[in-house]
């Protein structure tokens, strides 16, 4: 439908289309360099209400409230931001079963230069698993649309948070 479909597909164009297809209109984020084209694309598209938040927890609160009031939303963040979230996730969208969709740009792996990021990265999947939050790591462009669409669809169908992890294999990582 949009120009994204005709131009060479990109991971961020595919994600943006998956948000649209699932009527995810609220895009909150704490900035990340790898996510820039996705953030810029959402800002530029009037379908979305897009704004930055000061903390990832805050964004989870906002998206939870919006979702309960009928507007679906997503939180974009990087790995270190995800690591600030366990209490907020456990006590709010998981406990109340509200489908907050998260997109995490994965730092700390595949050639990371920052030791802190590398350690934080190892906490992410155990935290998600411990709360039963389904997560999928997106590594391939040819699978990206399927993984994104199905993950978001299932989150809303089953009323449970979900997390898409954008691997450097897909995004190219931090240059």
């Amino acid at each position: 439908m949009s120009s994204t479909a005709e131009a060479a597909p990109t991971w961020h164009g595919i994600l943006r289309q998956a948000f649209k297809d699932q009527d995810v209109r609220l895009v909150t984020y704490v900035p990340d360099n790898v996510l820039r084209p996705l953030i810029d694309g959402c800002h530029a598209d009037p379908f979305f209400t897009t704004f930055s938040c000061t903390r990832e927890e805050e964004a989870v609160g906002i998206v939870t409230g919006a979702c309960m009031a009928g507007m679906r939303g997503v939180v974009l963040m990087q790995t270190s931001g995800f690591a600030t979230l366990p209490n907020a996730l456990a006590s709010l969208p998981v406990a109340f079963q509200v489908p907050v969709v998260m997109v995490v740009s994965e730092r700390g792996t595949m050639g990371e230069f920052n030791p802190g990021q590398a350690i934080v990265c190892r906490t992410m999947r155990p935290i998600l698993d411990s709360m039963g939050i389904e997560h999928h790591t997106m590594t391939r462009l040819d699978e990206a649309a399927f993984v994104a669409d199905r993950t978001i669809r299932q989150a809303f169908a089953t009323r449970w948070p979900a997390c898409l992890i954008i691997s450097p294999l897909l995004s190219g990582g931090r240059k």
Partner: protein
Amino acid sequence: MTETTGNLHVMNRAALTKRLVAGLKNREAVIGGIGNSNWDLWGAGQRPENFYMLGSMGLAAPIAFGVAIAQPARRVFALEGDGSLLMQLGCLSTIAAQAPKNLAIIVWDNGIYQITGGQSTPAAQARTDIVAIARASGIASAAWAADEAEFDVLVARALTTDGPHVIGVKIDNEPGRNQTDRDPIRFRESFMRAMAEPV
């Protein structure tokens, strides 16, 4: 409305929550903050438009903001403790930047973390003015309620004029009077059903 903390009457959370809820006539949403804010909201009479959180300290205002974005026609209140707001001060800038017209945040300022043993907050020790923080964050309609009558005036303003609004209230150290049930699925379902009703 009162700009400074110099001459504020110390009020009571349970009594003011009752006053607030009694004045809600248009299915306004009310998001209670952790612990006492929730408990006194519960005690003021359960309405399906109330949302009672669990342990997500500091997220009453962000949750309310999310509701306000999703439903611009509905007025939305957050009831938040001073300690809780201190944990998430950045949300005041986020809210100021987006400027939701239908959002009001009421801050119950007892100067302590009452529910965890009454320890004083760093803000109380430093005489931090929370309403001044809100104003400096870009929320122009931020004021202290000097007494019950002024609280009523500020709530009326929040119900009838464009926000976002912040209302600061100095309260005593009484604990919340009525504990909520702890039934998140039921709360979420009834809140969502209520939000699906037109205003």
